[in-house]
């Protein structure tokens, strides 16, 4: 029932309401960037709904997504192979190549 699987290329949404008062679990610095699904973490109640006292259902798939550090930080001068992994809910992700 998940839209993506390990190894899929995904891109993080940018077009979301401003925060606050919205509650957003995807860090600002990763929005708009592309990465690779490292694993499917399971499904959880939606924290961005729970934050408003609503039930947060249906549960939403959560993915661990891997990004190249060099793609995230333009001035990154560490190892080329360095990665950062961030857990991101499905509604924040598009298949890479899809126009948002």
């Amino acid at each position: 029932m998940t839209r993506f699987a390990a190894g899929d290329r995904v891109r993080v949404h940018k077009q979301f309401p401003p925060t606050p008062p919205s509650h957003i679990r995807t860090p600002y610095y990763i929005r708009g960037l592309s990465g690779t699904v490292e694993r499917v973490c399971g499904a959880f109640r939606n924290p961005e709904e729970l934050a408003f006292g609503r039930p947060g259902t249906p549960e939403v798939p959560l993915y661990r997504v891997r990004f190249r550090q060099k793609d995230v930080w333009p001035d990154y001068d560490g190892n080329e192979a360095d990665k950062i992994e961030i857990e991101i809910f499905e509604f924040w992700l598009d298949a890479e190549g899809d126009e948002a």
Partner: protein
Amino acid sequence: MERDFTARGHHDMGGLDAGEIDREEHDYALWEKRVDALMMLCTNRLKLMTVDQLRKGIEALPPEAYDNMTYYERWISSVTNTLLERGVFTADELGAKMEEVKARYPDGVMPGGAAGGGC
């Protein structure tokens, strides 16, 4: 042309210059432990709010308040606002209770060094 409608919340500071990080450990004051216990009671036992609501309330603090409050001051501010929103108590009831507690202490100063926000 890609348009970015998002705004960075003041709390969402990953990647920004942080300056010095205070790594000093400190003992929790009694009021801080009480705030923690109150939060556990409100979420796990009484189901009056969620941890996600706590976070939303903290994120909604004005930048200056966010920067100047201590960790548990942010917590108690968010818990208070959330319970007010939910109608668990009214602002008048809260004010009356605060006056009542204050009156228990000489000169209205509570022991323990809670810098405002203590309960």
